[in-house]
C-alpha cells in the first residue's frame, strides 16, 4: 500500500472513531449500532466493517485512541522543566480543556469504558487500553516523589484521588450542576490536589 493510501486509510479510521465516539457518548454503547455510525458518516455498513471487524473492536480502538490523545498531552507536560505544582496545574488544565473541547472523549471514558466493562474484558485487561495515559500519570507521580515534592504512597491511593476528583468535576459539569465554568475551577482544584499529595 502506498504511503498516501495508508495515510488516507488512517484518516478515515480516525474519522470513524471520532464519530462513533460522539454517538456512543451521547446515545450509549448498546443503543448505537454500526448502521447508525455508517448513516451519520454517509458510508455503507459494509465499508465500516472494512475498518473495524466488530462494534466491540471499535469500542476498544476508541479507548486506545483517547488514551494516546491524552497521554501525548501529558507527556508534553512531563517533559517540561517545571515544578511539580505547576505540572499539577497544567494536567488539570489539559484534562478540563479536553472535557470542554472534546467532551465526548471524557464522557466515553466515564460512561462507556468504566460502565461497560464486559465489552472491554477481552483485549483491554487491566489498564492495557489506557496504558499511555496511565504511564504519564505514573511518571508525574514518580518524578514528584523523587524530587521530594510529593509524598511517597501507594500509587492507586494517589491515582484515585487525582482522577476521581477530575472525573467527578467533569461529571458534575455534564449534569449542568456546576455554577461556574469548568476552567474557572482549575486553580482551586490543582491547589487542592497538590496540597493533598505533597510531602
Amino acid at each position, binding site marked *: 500500500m502506498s504511503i498516501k493510501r495508508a495515510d488516507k486509510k488512517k484518516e478515515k479510521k480516525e474519522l470513524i472513531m471520532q464519530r462513533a465516539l460522539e454517538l456512543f457518548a451521547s446515545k450509549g454503547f448498546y443503543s448505537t449500532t454500526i448502521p447508525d455510525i455508517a448513516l451519520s458518516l454517509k458510508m455503507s455498513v459494509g465499508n465500516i466493517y472494512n475498518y473495524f471487524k466488530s462494534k466491540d473492536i471499535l469500542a476498544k480502538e476508541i479507548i486506545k485512541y483517547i488514551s494516546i490523545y491524552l497521554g501525548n498531552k501529558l*507527556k508534553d507536560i512531563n517533559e517540561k522543566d517545571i515544578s511539580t505544582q505547576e505540572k499539577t496545574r497544567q494536567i488539570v488544565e489539559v484534562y478540563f480543556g479536553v472535557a470542554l473541547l472534546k467532551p465526548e472523549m471524557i464522557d466515553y471514558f466515564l460512561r462507556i469504558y468504566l460502565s461497560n466493562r464486559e465489552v472491554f474484558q477481552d483485549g483491554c*485487561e*487491566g*489498564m*492495557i487500553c489506557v*496504558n*499511555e495515559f*496511565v*504511564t504519564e500519570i*505514573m*511518571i508525574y*507521580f*514518580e*518524578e*514528584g*516523589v*523523587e524530587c521530594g515534592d*510529593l509524598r*511517597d*504512597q*501507594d*500509587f*492507586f491511593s*494517589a491515582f484515585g484521588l487525582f482522577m476521581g476528583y477530575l472525573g467527578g468535576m467533569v461529571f458534575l459539569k455534564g449534569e449542568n450542576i456546576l455554577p461556574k465554568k469548568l476552567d474557572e475551577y482549575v486553580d482551586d482544584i490543582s491547589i487542592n490536589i497538590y496540597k493533598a499529595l505533597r510531602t
Partner: protein
Amino acid sequence: MLSKKLKILWLTAITCNGNTHSFLNYPHLDIFMDTFEFIYHPSIDSAYTLNDIINKEIACDILIIEGSISTEYIKADAPIVDIINKYASKVQKIVTVGTCASFGGMFRESDYKDTTGLHFDKERPTSLFEHIKEKTISLSGCPVHPDIIANTLYSIEKKRAIELDSLLRPKEFFAYTVHNGCTRNEYFEYKIDNHQFGKKEGCMFYDHGCHAPYTHGSCNKILWNEVNSKTRAGLSCMGCTEPTFPKGDFFHTKKNMGIPQYLPFGVAKRTYLTLAGITKAFHIKRLEEDLFDD
C-alpha cells in the same frame, strides 16, 4: 634453572580478605600453580616475606591489589602507596581484585583518610595512580568470582587482548548484567513478585531490592561453587560489582509511588512502565503456583 612461571605479588590493603577466600575456592588451583607462582600472598605459601617485598628488589610480572587504598594506610612500616608504586613500575599488568580495590567499596567507609579504589572513588576517576592506569584491569565484586581472577590471569599469561569497559573491567565478564541467566527471568517478565527469601518462585526486583537488572557481572553465567548464584538460591543481588556498592538497603526496593527508582540498565522509564502496565494485566496461572508440591 629459572622458573618460567609468571610471578605474582598479591598485595592486600584495607580489606576483609574476602577475595583471597574466594580465590582459595578456585577448583583448579593446583593446575593454576603450574603456570603462576606467588612471590608473596598473605594466605598461600610464597617465596618471600612482606618485609622482603618492601625492602628487596624482587622480580614480578603481575601486581594484584586487594582492598581499598588510603595514603594513610601503612603495611609493615611502609605506606601502601609506596609499595604499589614500587612494583607497579616493573610489572606487565596490575589487577585490582574486588570492589574495594577497584572503586573503594565497603572499606571506603573506613576511618582512613580519603579511602578509594586504585583508580576510582566510586565512579569518579582519581589521579593518584594515573601513571599506571593503562596497565590496570579492574575485577570488581564483593568478592570477585575465582574463575574471573584465574581466567584474567591466564589471558595475561597468553598475552591475549583484554577488552575493558570505562571502569577498566573486562567486557568478557562485565558486559552483561547479573539478570542475564537468572532462573527467575520469566517472573521478571510477567511482574510476579517473590514474597519470601529462599523461595524458588518469583522475582525479587519489585520488592526485595534485587539489583541484578542494573548490575554488571557474570554471577548467573559463571556460577558460584559451580552450582548456584544469589538470585537462583533466592537472595537478591546486592549490586556488589558496581562502583556505587554498597548502596544501602540491600533487601528493599526503593520505590516512588510504587515505581522502582532504579530501572533495568538502559531502559527508559516510559518504556519500562508501558511494558509493566501490559504484563501486569495478565495472570499466568503456571507462574503464580509453587513449582513443587510441598
